[in-house]
């Protein structure tokens, strides 16, 4: 069983002169990166083992060096998204209780405003090498701490052990055939489980990782050409933007990719089709997994087959549908070496049951063992005893042009108990009306599922990761 720091050490030993990391301003070979990490971790060794150290960085080499140094020094990296509000930043830090908060020059003011006893605050450039004894974490130690995005409730601290991470990383590399010959483009924050998993995989297989601070499609296409990128990891909206807003010549930059990986429980089929048409031989894939159980399934899309599925359970992972109804729909429970032991400071113990993680997600398996996600247990809309899954409504409405995002929630109703209320964010210059949407719904869904109210919004309340806070829309 590896610890995360071994990913870098092993790749450095195997290919010291190979380029490991490229960002806007710099590039590092594996040996250069290892040397930087060793020096930086010698400074961090002054903190007790298992101390929490908070990181607030954009997608830069400074993040990678700081993160790996924390791991190497046997401490726990608390990863903070740059988009976090000051209120949530203060809450996370108060919960994580770090000994040190590290950041870049541009974010130092945010860190400096935090109030917490015994917290040191440093810029990356303030850290100087000092001499201190080497340390080595153990596989059962916590490696990093991420707070969930809070789409359904208050953010929860999720501590990941080295062994959780080692298991998931090997699963990613094996399932998606990552190798040292890959050049991986990452326009994703590494403070999120998706982006961080990509960093781990690159280090583990010894490929080259190209970091990009923003997910602008023109920058992504330019980087793919400039660095001869072979794999791209991006969220669905980034991929949809790329396919919708670029001409065929620009999209040809994607054609030689061998892999496009995304992370959604719902990846618009239209985007999948477009990407498949562009790629010569490459694959389009997604996965399902919470921060608490990273990469629990993988789905490699093959034409129209199972296009709405998140795939089959990863090797070594068990998934069951608990309390399923007559249609086989119930709560998804996950068991395996990728599942966390506990939440931070043993809170939320009710989410674990005899080693199983109760995800709160609703799903079903088809006859071939492919998993489909239908929404959240808490989001179910109960209309006169009929269960309605918000995602089903949203998928039907989303196909209309002129709609950027749509959310269905329950609304109290004196006769039916609950009915569907729809919040719609239009695309720029869209002229779509409530009547257009309702007419489409009446044609395409059962009567009881047709929204009883439609409200247009400029935008949705969002988490620090940009996800919509669905629970805040409910009455």
């Amino acid at each position: 069983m590896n610890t995360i720091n071994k990913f870098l050490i092993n790749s450095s030993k195997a290919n010291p002169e190979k380029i490991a990391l490229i960002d806007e301003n710099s590039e590092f070979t594996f040996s250069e990166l290892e040397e930087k990490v060793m020096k930086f971790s010698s400074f961090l060794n002054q903190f007790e083992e298992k101390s929490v150290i908070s990181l607030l960085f954009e997608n830069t080499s400074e993040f990678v060096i700081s993160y790996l140094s924390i791991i190497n020094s046997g401490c726990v990296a608390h990863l903070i998204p740059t988009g976090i509000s000051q209120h949530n930043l203060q809450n996370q830090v108060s919960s994580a209780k770090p000994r040190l908060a590290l950041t870049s020059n541009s974010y130092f003011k945010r860190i400096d405003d935090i109030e917490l006893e015994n917290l040191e605050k440093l810029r990356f450039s303030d850290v100087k090498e000092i001499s201190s004894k080497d340390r080595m974490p153990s596989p059962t130690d916590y490696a990093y701490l991420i707070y969930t995005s809070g789409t359904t409730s208050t953010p929860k601290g999720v501590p990941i052990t080295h062994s959780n991470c080692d298991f998931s990383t090997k699963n990613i590399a094996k399932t998606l055939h990552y190798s040292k010959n890959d050049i991986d483009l990452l326009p994703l924050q590494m403070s999120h489980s998706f982006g961080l998993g990509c960093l781990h995989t690159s280090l583990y297989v010894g490929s080259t990782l190209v970091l990009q601070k923003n997910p602008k499609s023109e920058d992504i296409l330019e980087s793919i050409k400039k660095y001869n990128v072979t794999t791209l990891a991006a969220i669905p909206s980034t991929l949809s933007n790329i396919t919708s807003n670029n001409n065929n010549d620009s999209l040809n930059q994607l054609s030689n990719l061998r892999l496009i990986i995304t992370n959604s429980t719902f990846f618009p089929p239209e985007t999948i089709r477009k990407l498949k048409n562009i790629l010569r031989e490459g694959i389009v894939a997604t996965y399902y997994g919470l921060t608490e159980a990273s990469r629990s399934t993988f789905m490699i899309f093959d034409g129209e087959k199972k296009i709405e599925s998140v795939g089959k359970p990863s090797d070594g992972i068990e998934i069951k549908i608990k309390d399923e109804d007559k249609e086989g729909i119930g709560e998804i429970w996950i068991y395996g070496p990728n599942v966390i032991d506990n939440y931070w400071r043993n809170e939320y113990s009710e989410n674990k049951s005899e080693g199983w993680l109760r995800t709160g997600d609703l799903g079903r398996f088809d006859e071939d063992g492919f998993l489909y996600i239908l929404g959240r247990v808490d989001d179910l809309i109960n209309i006169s005893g009929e269960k309605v899954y918000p995602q089903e409504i949203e998928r039907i409405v989303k196909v209309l042009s002129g709609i950027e995002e749509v959310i269905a929630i329950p609304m109290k109703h004196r006769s039916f108990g609950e009915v569907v209320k729809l919040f719609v964010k239009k695309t720029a210059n869209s002229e779509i009306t409530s009547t257009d949407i309702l007419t489409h719904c009446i044609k395409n869904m059962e009567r009881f599922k047709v929204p009883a109210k439609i409200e247009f919004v400029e935008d949705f309340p969002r988490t620090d990761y940009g996800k919509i806070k669905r629970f805040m829309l409910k009455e």
Partner: protein
Amino acid sequence: MNLDDDVKKIFFETFPLLTEYDFDWEKTQNNYEDWDSFAQLNLITLTEAKFEINFSDDEITSINSAKSLLEITKSKL
């Protein structure tokens, strides 16, 4: 398009099986096979959205024909 046509169109959209031949302003709810409580909800929602009006609970329960929908809608414009 005038108000009569708009209301009639709402009826055709709510009841996709309805034909021009079958449509009658006086025909009441009991004579529609598929005018159940959810169809009533669809009809109201579509009318409210189309004309940007709101019906009270009493008004909703009194709507039982194309004619009554037209009259109540007219009174609100």
